């Protein structure tokens, strides 16, 4: 089947098998492997993307459901001038180790700060509780969110 969607501001089309998830189509058909596949059941947040401005796990959305909709992935988060402030902050504070969870965290954090520019520590913890990181113990991720919120 044919899927048409706007990804990071660009019209894109893909030929997909009906059972393919949005995540599969992004990664394997549209050349956008930034969104990661770590659990395929919406538990880890590694595939977080913005679907019509709403934070979703791309593994839980069928590609067909995204037909005609607008997507932002980690690849489209930065501005023309360079990195998104959240990306800068993650790099600066040591919030990245293996980095596999990072795209998901970056997208989820950008979404949090867009809704709540000055989140409290509890609000940060709750907002990011759907994103798993196995390397950092989250401390430097919290530093990154605070840094990005202050910038």
């Amino acid at each position, binding site marked *: 089947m044919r899927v048409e969607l706007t990804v990071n501001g660009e019209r894109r089309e893909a030929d997909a098998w009906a059972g393919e998830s949005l995540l599969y189509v992004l990664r394997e058909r549209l050349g956008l492997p930034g969104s*990661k596949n770590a659990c395929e059941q919406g538990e880890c947040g590694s595939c977080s993307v913005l679907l019509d401005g709403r934070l979703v796990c791309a593994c839980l959305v069928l590609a067909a459901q995204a037909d005609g909709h607008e997507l932002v992935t980690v690849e489209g988060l930065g501005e023309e001038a360079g990195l998104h402030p959240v990306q800068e902050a993650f790099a600066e504070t040591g919030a*990245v180790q293996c980095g596999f969870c990072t795209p998901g965290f970056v997208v989820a954090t950008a979404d949090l700060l867009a809704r709540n520019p000055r989140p409290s520590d509890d609000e940060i913890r709750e907002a990011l509780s759907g994103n798993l990181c*196995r390397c950092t113990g989250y401390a430097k991720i919290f530093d990154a969110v605070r840094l990005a919120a202050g910038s």
Partner: protein
Amino acid sequence: MNAPARTLELGRVGESVKRVDAIPKVTGEFAYSSDLFAAGMLWGHTVRSPHAHALIEEVDISEAVGMAGVHAVLTHTDVPGAKAYGLEFADQPVLAIERVRYFGEPVAIVAAEHPEQARRAAERIRVAYEPLEPVVDPERATEQEPIHDGRPTAGHGFRDDPRPNVVRSIVIRHGDPDAQGEVTVSGVYELGIQDQAFLGPESGLAVPDGEGGVDVYVATQWLHVDRDQVAPCLGLDPEQVRIHLSGVGGAFGGREDLSMQIHASMLALHTNRPVKMVYNREESFVGHIHRHPAKIWMEHRAKRDGKLVNVRARILLDGGAYASSSAAVTANASAFACGPYAVENALVECACVYTNNPPCGAMRGFGAVQSCFAHEAQMDKLGAELGMDPVELRLRNALAPGDSLPTGQKITGSFPAAEVIRRAAALPIPEPEELPRDALRLPGGSGNTTRGEGVRRGVGFAVGFKNVCYSEGFDDSTAARVRLAASDDGIAAVVHCAAAEVGQGVVNVILQTARTELDLDEVVLGSATTSSVGSAGSASASRMTWMAAGAVQLACRAAKDELERRGGDLEHGETIDVERVYHHRPTTPLDRETGQVTGDGAHVAYICAAMRVVAEVDVELGLTRVVWIGTAQDVGKAVNPQAVYGQIEGGIAQGLGLALMEEIQTQDGLITNASFTDYLIPTTLDMPPVEAQLVEEPEPDAPYGVKGVGEPPTVVSTAAVASALRDATGRQLTRVPVRPDEIVGLP
């Protein structure tokens, strides 16, 4: 919390330097092993055993072979070379032959155009099994039928233990094992199976070179040992198999063993097309080894003043179906069984057995985690028995340079156990937070299960230690290659080292070392591959910083010497290219009968950490909340302080997970919770703030005085969290993860 350091871009040893891969990782450009693509690529899939133990009567691939899009269906008869492999012992079949020994064991492999076609073809492969009684109780394994023919691990210099299903057994006799104390405490402790749960699943791409060889792009911890296992199974020379490090989504020991490397290579060579394999999460849970579950019996005998007289320990590790690195884990569990304490008399008996449970091997802490949980529970118990402050008790017994371990090995390098205990104990703990408070800061969290009634607070303490680098005579050397060339701004350097960057930040260690040694900013890191440089050894055993820094330092100094010989400058087009190999000081095996050191000693050096934990428990529901963790860790010298704090915080999270929630559950050997829905790892809501202090006492033998930092936080945090829960509940809590049932119902 540890203040975020401002990072430098091009710093030297001792400075916080932004990761060289940070920007590609935050933008999504960094290519992990599951992101790879090649033109004409096929997808591989693995058919796995649904049984923990069964005979294979027949594998019928006829239906699968003819399916649309399917290019290859292979079984053990298609393995071109050696039929079995293994890190230490080649006891694991590439594809099962006649018998499967664990749930999820690979039986056949498929390559197809689309991953779904490969999955569907795999479903059409008919495997006729005759189920056998699985060996699942490690306490009975040594009396049951052997699950391997012959004795795969016998004859390697190990103590002769003729019982069936023994992977390795060790007895350490030190001083007078019958020595009596004035006070005795004993206990039996258990740990469940922990999973590494790295986020990036096993994956990679094998590309045939058209001349019979193959290039494998993969996430691994040791490129050269992968090659040395892959090549014989493919019937190829090592040079025909080139292993290249792809982006690694975490490792924690779980990528020491092979996963899809041989399978993808077989499919690629068979089809003459690139083949990609990516495990899903469920498959990942059976696709790698786990942390050994353990049962530990311990008795501590002490004087009334708290001085330990004798420690007697019996440790049983369940190694699962294949040996992996179990023999070395057994050695660690034994050698560190008494904790970082000076004990003149000890008897430690440790056995690891084969069963039909999930295979176990390396995970961060490597045997020391299990022992630490037991010896620290015992120290708490002894403190309570003596009415002595737990910190004071530990200080009174703290192991120091000049003291000997129960193996008889004398500590000759830095070992500030007393200092980490003092520093951790001195960290002020937060005052209890007033009620009412937000449910997020109560046990049960956003589940909103309590307003604070039934909530009790406890403070725990623990100390732990382990070795750095490989042990018992293993020469895990590291090579580095430095190439200097003239550039527009003077001289530029390229450094090659096959050290696996698994997230720990060794890429920065290499670059910071090279910049320091060459006094040069213009340093570029070459890609890690078996084709351009010698072995780096494994990104394991907290060794990679020490060994990579040592190798890069040697190579840089040799390059500088050569540059000087040539007058201090290079013409355009002129290069200097040198490779050097760094060895740590030699070690020797333990005596097979007494477990005492022979020759130079079994270990290279030791690292320790102490930790203080505040926790709250809801005794109505058995729910827990860790409130705060403070730690002091012996790091030798912090090459990149920001990364060291990151290792400590992350390592603590994994130990907290084992204490509170992480366990692979099995029923008759079958894993019942192979998903992130059912196997829980700590989230942002589970992790408390961590206050960490670095104790920098340089290691005399090591470059810049570095040690290793990855493992001690994981070794000690399970024990420290359990200690806090014990303080809060007054219960023994002898098993981790601690279950709600063990906390509820307090009067």
